[in-house]
C-alpha cells in the first residue's frame, strides 16, 4: 500500500503475475481474433494480405493460440493463490450478485444505480470470468481438436467447428462488454489501474467492491475512506 502525492490512497488488487497473464491473454485474444476474422466471415478477407496470406494467418493463429493457453499456466506456477481465488470466487455466487444485475443496466447506460456491496470481484466481473473461463475452455479444447484432427474421431472433429464458433461469438461479446466497462464506461475506468499498476483507488474499491473494502478495513489493511462515494 502506498500513498500518492495528492493523498489519493490505493490498495493492492492484483499480483504482477496476474497482470502479466491478463495482458498476455488479452493480447493473444485479439491476435487470435484478428487472425481468424477473415475465416469467420469473408467480409474481412481484406485482412489476409495484411496477415501475410491465409497460411501465415493460420500459423499466427496457432502461435497466438499457444500464447492464449499459456497465462493460466504461468499463474498456476507463480501465483497459485490468485488463480484459485479468482476461480473460486468466480464460481461462488450469492444473493447480492443477483441484485447487482438488477441494478446494473441503469448504471451501464449512465444512470445512478444503487448497487449492493460487492466482493473482490463484483458480480459483473464474476460473470465475465465465468464466461471467459468457459469460452476459453471451449475455444482451447475445440481448437486442439481442429489443430490435431488426426487424434480425434470425425464426430468430435465435426462438432469442434460449431463449438469453436459459438465460443468465439460468445467470447467476443463478453470481451466487448469487458472492455467497455474497463475503458469506455466512465464509472469503471479506474479499474484499469488495477490491471496496470496492480492497485486501485480506495474510493473506487469502496464504491465498486464494498464487501472487499469492508474486509480490508476490518483487517486493518486500510483506513476507512471518508470521501463521498460516487
Amino acid at each position, binding site marked *: 500500500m502506498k500513498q500518492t502525492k495528492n493523498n489519493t490512497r490505493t490498495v493492492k488488487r492484483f499480483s504482477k503475475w496476474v497482470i502479466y497473464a491478463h495482458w498476455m491473454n488479452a493480447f493473444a485474444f485479439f491476435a487470435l481474433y484478428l487472425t481468424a476474422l477473415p475465416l469467420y466471415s469473408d467480409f474481412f478477407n481484406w485482412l489476409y494480405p495484411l496477415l501475410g496470406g491465409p497460411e501465415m494467418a493460420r500459423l499466427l493463429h496457432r502461435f497466438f493460440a499457444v500464447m492464449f493457453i499459456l497465462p493460466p499456466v504461468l499463474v498456476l506456477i507463480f501465483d497459485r493463490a490468485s488463480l484459485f481465488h479468482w476461480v473460486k470466487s468466480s464460481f461462488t455466487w450469492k444473493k447480492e450478485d443477483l441484485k447487482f444485475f438488477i441494478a446494473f443496466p441503469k448504471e451501464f447506460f449512465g444512470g445512478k444505480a444503487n448497487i449492493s456491496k460487492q466482493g473482490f470481484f463484483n458480480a459483473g466481473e464474476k460473470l465475465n470470468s465465468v464466461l471467459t473461463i468457459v469460452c476459453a475452455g471451449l475455444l482451447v479444447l475445440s481448437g486442439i481438436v481442429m489443430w490435431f484432427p488426426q487424434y480425434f474421431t470425425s464426430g468430435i472433429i465435426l462438432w469442434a467447428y460449431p463449438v469453436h464458433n459459438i465460443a468465439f461469438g460468445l467470447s467476443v461479446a463478453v470481451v466487448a462488454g469487458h472492455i467497455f466497462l474497463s475503458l469506455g464506461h466512465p464509472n469503471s*475506468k479506474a479499474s484499469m489501474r488495477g490491471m496496470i499498476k496492480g492497485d486501485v483507488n480506495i474510493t473506487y474499491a469502496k464504491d465498486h467492491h464494498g464487501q472487499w473494502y469492508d474486509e480490508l478495513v476490518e483487517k486493518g489493511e486500510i483506513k476507512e475512506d471518508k470521501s463521498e462515494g460516487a
Partner: protein
Amino acid sequence: MSYAKLVDVTKCTACRACMVACKNWNDLPSDSQAYGGTYQSHTKCDGKTWNVLQMKEYETSSGGFEWLFRHQACMHCEEAACEKVCPESAISTTSLGNVVIDQEKCVGCSYCTQNCPFDVVELAEYVTEDGETVERAQKCTMCDGRIQAGLQPACADICGMDAIVFGKKEEMKKLAEARLNEVKDRYPNAQIYDPAGVDGTHTFYLLAEDPAVYDLPENPKVPVSAVVWKDYAQPMGKALLGVTTMAVMTGYITNKLFNKEGHAEEGGQTDETDKE
C-alpha cells in the same frame, strides 16, 4: 438445368482410364501409394487424385463371387456440406449442378475436408497466380471448364464401356432406371444411389450391391454439426456480435449524454498522478 454423371458400376471393367483422363485434363500430379494388398491403387479420393477406382472382392449372400468396381469421385451433392461450411465462399454450385472450388478464394482451412459426407475433398498443393505453392482444398470439379463449354467431363469422355455417362439429370435418372431393370437378374441387390439426405447428387450410381458394400453411407447428410454451426451458431454469433457492439455503442453514447460529470476524474487523475 441440372446435369449429372451416372456411374453404372455394372458396366465398368476397372480399366481406370477415368483416373488417368482426370489427371491428364486437370494436370494433376501422380501419387504412388504404398502396396495395399489389392489391385486398388489409392485408398481414397484426395486432392491429388480426384477419382479412384474402387476394386472389391465380395462374396454375395448366396455364396457367389463378385469383383466389384466403382469409379468414386466427388458426388456433387445438391445440398453440399462443403459449400455450406466454406468460410470463404470459395465453394459454389454452378448452374449445371456441379460443385466447384475456386482455388484463388480457398484459403486451405480444411473445413470442407472435415465435413464432406463422402470424404472426397482433401488439401493438396496448388500453385497460385503468384507462383506460390500453397495447400488448397481440391476435388473433382466435374471438369467444369469442359462442361461449361459443352464438352463431357474427361472421365465420361474416355470411358469405353459407357460406365460413366453425363447428361441432363432427368435423362440420366431414366437411363439408370432402365439399366436397373436390365441388371436385376445378374445383380438382385442392384439399386440406384442418389441419396435424398443431401437432396440428391450430381454424380450418382447404379450400384450392383448395397451402398455399404461399396463403403458408401446409407443415408449421407450434411452433418448436424455443420447445420448447427452454419445455420444457427454463425448467424447468432454474428447477431450477438452486433448486439454487443450496439450495446457498447449505445452505452457509450448514453454515458456521454447522461453521465457527463461521472467519475471519470478518478481514474484520469490517478493515472496522471502515478508518474512521479
